[in-house]
């Protein structure tokens, strides 16, 4: 195992490509292979966890923290998120209100870091790290400063926030889906509306997670799953064994992920040099 600080991708146990076996999950507009939804459905249905705390896009780019307890609720929350949901404070209320003892969290690398640090190093008596069973981090290139991003969409393209039905990533373009059609915006252009904090972030995959999930362009329709340790490995393999997940080896895409991770670190270094 490689130590975290010496490796851009963190500690890696295995790399898989996964796909949900459930047609219902695949039918929904999941980001890639639906493996995260499938894995957590497995954990919920086999009573490994009481609930999954995650973000659900409500309207436009905004989202909120929700607790999913069934496959249907998970599917509802699946898909890309484009702005960060201030999770930390709300997740605690959620966990306490709903009396959850074993929680799966689906989050971004920065949030995974917070939860991972809290679980490994419970500094405060009020910490709830012992209730967090699985941390699943999604690959992340940054989140939008969404007021700025929406303003840019309005000024340059005449798109109003309430019109936006969905946003998808397609190659080098960001597709804004509206009732009237699809607008493709070059990613490069959109990237200037990321949050400044994201521009100095060096973590692409979420090194503090149990399982990191995301997609690579060379394997459309599949979710890349990086397991960090035995704990994460058991979740992925368990879901496969119980027929929730179709798995194959993914070590050949590691290079592709590494390239993205390098891009993010290089961007972070460039921006840090300007900021400090």
């Amino acid at each position, binding site marked *: 195992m490689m130590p975290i600080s*010496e490796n851009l991708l963190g500690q890696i146990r295995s790399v898989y490509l996964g796909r949900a076996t459930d047609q219902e999950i695949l039918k929904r507009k999941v980001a890639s292979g639906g493996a995260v939804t499938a894995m957590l459905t497995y954990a919920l249905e086999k009573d490994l966890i009481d609930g999954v705390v995650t973000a659900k896009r409500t309207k436009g780019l905004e989202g909120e923290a929700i607790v999913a307890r069934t496959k249907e609720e998970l599917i509802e929350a699946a898909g890309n998120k484009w702005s960060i949901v201030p999770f*930390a404070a709300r997740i605690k209320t959620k966990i306490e209100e709903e009396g959850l003892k074993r929680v799966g969290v689906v989050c971004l690398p920065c949030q995974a870091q*917070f939860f991972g640090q809290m679980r490994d*190093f*419970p500094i405060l008596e009020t910490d709830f790290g012992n209730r967090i069973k699985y941390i699943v981090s999604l690959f992340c290139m940054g989140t939008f400063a969404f007021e700025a991003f929406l303003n840019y969409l309005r000024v340059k393209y005449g798109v109003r926030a309430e019109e936006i039905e969905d946003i998808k990533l397609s190659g080098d373009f960001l597709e804004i889906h509206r009732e009237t059609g699809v607008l493709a915006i070059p990613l490069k252009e959109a990237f200037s509306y990321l949050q400044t904090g994201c521009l100095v972030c060096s973590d692409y995959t979420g090194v503090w997670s149990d399982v990191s999930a995301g997609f690579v362009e060379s394997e459309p329709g599949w979710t890349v799953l990086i397991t960090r340790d035995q704990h994460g490995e058991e979740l992925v393999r368990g879901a496969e064994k119980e027929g929730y997940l179709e798995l194959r080896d993914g070590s050949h895409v590691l290079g592709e992920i590494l390239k993205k991770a390098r891009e993010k670190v290089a961007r972070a270094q460039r921006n840090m040099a300007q*900021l*400090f």
Partner: protein
Amino acid sequence: MEKLKVLHVDFAGCEGCNVSIIRAYPKLMDQIDLDISYLQDGSCKYSEYDIALITGGACMNEPRVVNELKEIRERAKIVVAFGSCAALGGILRFCRGGQAPRPDHRNFQPVNSVIHVDYSIPGCPPTPQMLQSFFKFFIAGNEARLRLFKVTAGLKKLSGFDLVDDIVLTGLCIGCGACELSCPTGAIKLVEKRPTLIQERCIRCGTCYIRCPRASQLMCLGGEKP
């Protein structure tokens, strides 16, 4: 495996950290041999230790403290400042002297102002589980996980003020809310998705700073405060 010889010495503090160490001890007994004879007569059981756990800040108006710290440094391979007072000054930073029972005590510093510290664990007080985790990773030799505490050992202050200065005012805050959740005194409130500090409530414990994903990532990456 032979037990780690651990010396615990407390200087000035509220005893919160000491209680935390005592609470952590039952689960650590198989791995460490904890010497707390300072409670009795100030002597030490052994001449050398693997780890010295220091709680409480160093009173700079008390020559005895400075000498004792130097002696501990010579005897211990690793020095850990446990709790915000020892690590970063904490609430002892507010001491101005003139208070009973020791009006002459008017300046307190974190331990690393006097001696080299290897790991600093902030928290007011850090939980027993935190100490257990520390030993787990320390014994496993997992330097990557302990890096944050190693970097913190090089710092003499961290607080909500630093968080606001380094992360919020530089525009690096992404509004995740980790700081609000981590503040033991409720000094941080998220207003318009950004933390706002209620200054008089900040006890300079540094918990928010090392819990901020952005700040802790930058610290671990750069090896120092951004």
